[in-house]
């Protein structure tokens, strides 16, 4: 077995352990809540005698010791059973899968936009650290970081959708284009612009700053001076030698922030009526649909874990110095 395969194997093992731990934490969180499913059903059906409660508890296994319940719960999650929604009376996993595409599309577009434009701004300003553009970018980045994502989202709607009527106010599709493949795609992109922009701006603020700091540091390092000394052209020095190393902290940050990205997506989905997982989570709270809420919790944690694994892989491609199993 090569070192790479072994390293990836151990990372996978860690990831599974981590997910298991999340399931345990979620399970004990449920135990913290006052009352249980039997009380909830009793309230729902208007029967409250002790016999009914005992029957329901026996039926759902709620009379078992906690550890046995935990075992059953982990077993179910391992078989991809996240329980059944008390509102839809459907398996939670199916509800999540239906909405997965919308959330991944939104979060993915924002992330690519933020990393791409952020690195471009970072490189541009790092080469002119004393210029007015550079200080303007720093201030803009601080403003972007302090602006709540739901606020910029609403303001975008006011300006671009309500005042200038350039883009749709919300939702993901228009019935107009039903059945027409090209029209549907353009329509989807039109609906995507404002949500992705509102979500991307915060991360643009963070990554442009990070890219700038990291680029400034790399440009001062010895190997860049060597590259210049041997007469490499400025373009080659900046884009080939420096950028490759300067981009690593940005990738690290992007990988670590997938959880925050999903949190932001939740707020954006609510503002734009975007039919994703985040909006389902918010709706589930108001429907007191705890199986769905907790299912989303576990599922999105799994998404973050997978994203971290992918970041790890991207690392290895960009920077061969990073060896598997080394300290992070």
């Amino acid at each position, binding site marked *: 077995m090569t070192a790479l395969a072994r390293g990836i194997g151990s990372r996978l093992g860690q990831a599974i352990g981590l997910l298991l731990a999340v399931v345990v934490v979620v399970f004990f969180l449920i135990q913290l809540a006052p009352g249980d499913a039997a009380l909830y059903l009793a309230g729902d059906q208007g029967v409250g005698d002790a016999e009914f409660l005992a029957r329901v508890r026996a039926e759902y296994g709620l009379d078992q010791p906690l550890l046995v319940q935990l075992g059953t719960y982990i077993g179910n999650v391992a078989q991809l059973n996240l329980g059944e929604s008390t509102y839809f009376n459907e398996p939670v996993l199916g509800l999540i899968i239906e909405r997965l595409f919308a959330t991944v599309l939104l979060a993915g577009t924002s992330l690519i936009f933020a990393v791409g434009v952020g690195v471009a701004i970072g490189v541009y300003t790092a080469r002119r650290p004393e210029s007015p553009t550079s200080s303007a970018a720093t201030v803009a980045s601080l403003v972007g970081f302090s602006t709540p994502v739901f*606020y910029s989202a609403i303001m975008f709607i006011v300006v671009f959708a309500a005042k200038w009527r350039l883009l749709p106010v919300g939702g993901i599709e228009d019935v107009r284009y039903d059945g027409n493949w090209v029209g549907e795609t353009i329509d989807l992109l039109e609906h995507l612009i404002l949500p992705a922009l509102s979500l991307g701006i915060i991360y643009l603020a963070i990554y442009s700053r990070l890219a700038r700091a990291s680029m400034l540091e790399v440009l001062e390092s010895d190997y860049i001076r060597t590259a210049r000394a041997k007469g490499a052209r400025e373009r080659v020095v900046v884009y080939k030698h420096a950028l490759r190393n300067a981009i690593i902290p940005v990738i690290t940050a992007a990988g670590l922030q997938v959880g925050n990205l*999903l*949190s932001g997506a939740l707020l954006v989905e609510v503002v734009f009526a975007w039919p994703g997982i985040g909006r389902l989570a918010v709706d589930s709270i108001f429907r007191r649909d705890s199986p769905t809420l907790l299912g989303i919790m576990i599922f999105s944690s799994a998404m973050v874990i997978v994203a971290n694994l992918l970041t790890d892989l991207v690392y290895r491609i960009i920077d061969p110095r990073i060896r598997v199993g080394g300290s992070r």
Partner: protein
Amino acid sequence: MFLRNKAAVVGLVVFSLIVLVTIFGPGLYGISANKMVAKPFLGPGSELAPLLGTDYLGRDILAGIIGGGRATLFVAAVAAAMTMTIGIVVGSLAGYFGGWIDALLMRFTEIFQVMPGLLFSMVVIFLLGPGTRNETLAIGLTLWPLAARLARAEFLRLRELEYVKAARAIGCSDLRIMFRTILPNAMPPLLVSATLTVVIAILFHSGLAFLGMVDVNTISWGSMLGKNRGYTLTAWWMVFFPGIAIVITGLSISLVGDGLQDAFNPKLRGR
């Protein structure tokens, strides 16, 4: 050093003003955020309207902004203090002792890092119910991993230094070395991180209020955004001004944090 950074000084002054306004403003302004003062939907500058207009119930937007900062700033401050405390305790134990303690604590920290933060605090409030105490708890329990990692990195670095070894050689106890010898030297980056945490806590509490997850009887900037959102297409001012309040508060604290960073670490100035 700090005082020479103009942006940071402006940030500090603005933030102090905001704190003064949230403490004394409601009493001085004299109009309750919950009171109907004029016709609903009056824009700023229209006849008989208060300075920043009225909302859909005819309440004074300016009164809401003056009164609405309290809940958010209080929860954010306490939650940030809680975050830093948990983070420093976990991080210092992990960094100082290393070995299996470090491995165990960092695995534990990772659990809280993979759960999307806003979702986690929503679940905590859903399970415990809204209210100042639970909201603070929900945010504090969510944000600590960042501080823990930072504290751990600092302790890992500092524990190898001469003066720490000297303290150990003269027989100081572990606790004394951790909190009297190392912690003061680890404070600069932790203080910068604390300012950042306050900003994030403000954004979190505003987000939760926006979603209607916090106590509905308390007016806050986030809840004004959430409740007035349905009228933005006709009445932009109901949402525009409370949002600006959040941005200015967050920005002023960020500027202070930036200034602190420059003051502590002159090498990085201007980055």
